[in-house]
């Protein structure tokens, strides 16, 4: 094959994976009889914010867990920042981070102690300055020396976000980042995520049930149902395709099996 042939040939999965922040290719996860994730493929460009939408059991958390390397796929492959997961996880885990309702920070440690431990795990240089900066940005200063277990839900979420940002990750995976937060705190967290993406050209993948959150933050939406990708486009295009004015209405159409009807009506 000549150089010209190479230039004109379509990109392979590996090529796309190298260029993308996340490349998922024919990913399948089967738990006993259940196909939690059923042959999904997508690729997220660097610097994008993508929302993973779907009802309970749609496969969002399993998909994110496979991207993180916490769950092994039954088949298919995942590439993160150009490296295969989980085989090459050592090359990328320091460049990514995550927040999830399935994990907590140690409760007895103070916020400062927790951030110190995680900062050292991620080999963050000038750690004291980094913690001071995060405390300032995320408004943690008033309770930075208080035990994590004595914080309110909103404060804990901000601390978890600080942990997720401690290493200034190129890739941020968020599972329900504003679940159980009051509207004011949730809005505040969203604003911070938008700012972080802008300032660091970071890639964010977030799983959420909050349609307003996805509409506001995401430039792309992947809708999952029963482990499969039901739709994948920009929020505006998806709403237009379903002839709906909000993603919540689209979500209900998908969840209640009104997909074809809604699409027909739009035509």
């Amino acid at each position, binding site marked *: 094959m000549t150089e010209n042939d190479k230039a004109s040939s379509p990109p392979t999965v590996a090529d796309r994976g190298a260029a993308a922040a996340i490349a998922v290719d024919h990913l399948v996860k089967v738990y006993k009889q259940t196909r939690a994730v059923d042959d999904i493929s997508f690729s997220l460009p660097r610097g994008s914010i993508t929302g993973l939408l779907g009802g309970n059991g749609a496969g969002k958390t399993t998909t994110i867990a496979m991207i993180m390397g916490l769950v092994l796929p039954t088949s298919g492959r995942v590439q993160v920042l150009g490296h295969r997961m989980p085989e090459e996880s050592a090359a990328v885990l320091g460049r990514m981070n995550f927040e999830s309702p399935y994990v907590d920070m140690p409760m007895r440690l103070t916020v400062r102690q927790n951030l110190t*431990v995680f900062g050292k795990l991620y080999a963050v240089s000038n750690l004291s300055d980094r913690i001071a900066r995060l405390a300032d940005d995320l408004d943690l200063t008033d309770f930075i020396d208080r035990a994590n277990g004595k914080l309110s839900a909103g404060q804990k979420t901000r601390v978890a976000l600080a942990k997720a940002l401690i290493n200034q990750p190129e890739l941020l995976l968020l599972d329900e980042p504003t679940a159980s937060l009051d509207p004011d705190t949730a809005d505040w967290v969203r604003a911070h995520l938008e700012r972080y993406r802008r300032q660091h050209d970071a890639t964010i993948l977030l799983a959420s049930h909050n349609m307003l959150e996805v509409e506001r933050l995401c430039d792309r939406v992947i809708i999952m149902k029963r482990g499969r990708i039901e739709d994948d486009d920009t929020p505006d295009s998806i709403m237009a395709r379903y002839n709906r004015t909000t993603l919540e209405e689209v979500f209900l159409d998908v969840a209640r099996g009104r997909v074809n009807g809604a699409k027909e009506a739009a035509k």
Partner: protein
Amino acid sequence: MSELSLHRGISLHRIGAMILRYWYLLLSSWPRLLELLYWPALQVITWGFLQLYIAENANFFARAGGTLIGAVILWDILFRGQLGFSISFLEEMWARNIGNLMMSPLRPIEFLLSLMVMSLIRLAIGIIPMTLLALVMFHFNVYALGLPLIAFFCNLIFTSWSVGIFVSGLVLRNGLGAESIVWTLMFAILPLACVYYPVSVLPVWLQYVAWALPPTYVFEGMRALLIENTFRTDLMLGALAMNAGLLVASFWAFLALLRSAKKHGSLLSSGE
């Protein structure tokens, strides 16, 4: 980002970070510190008085002064060494922090090394006061055993780490429903390792099982030293060889159980 690394990517920074995490936890909780002291002290007092009583009434025990109290101290090194390892691991499960750690650059071997260091720290907090109590109350100076004590200690701590690594893998794979194994598995070894009596007491077929356990060699070695004033190098080398095999096997089992946990999604649901 600066990184102090050993060969094959093992990072002292990350091991240090985990030790710091457990150190913060210990300092934040006086009940945790008290528990480290409480049980060893209770053990040595109970068995120390029993030793005194038996020594007054049995000529053999008067000659073999310290075998019971020595055995209880060495047993506590074995048992508390494993608990020190496993409880630090369980703290991550109780705190639902395993996912954070597994998603961080921390490698399994670094995690296990930090747990080993913590088992030594927790052991020191509990055992040093215990040995001082034995010295003051019962005039038994375990440090007078000299260099053999180091051989006994190393062999016991290696076994305790092997058991700790294996049961941590089981909990990782099966969730906190398997927690009771952490507290009970070592007691299965207690009668077979012949902590308080010689191997010759066991039926012949059970003696084969006993000699398959490294701690048996240590307790036999201790009795040889205290009763016959003989240090059995052969016993210590035998135990060391078996411990090396056990450590490799337990690490392999931990990795296999971790892989199985990832396959079954157990890391996301670390409850019961």
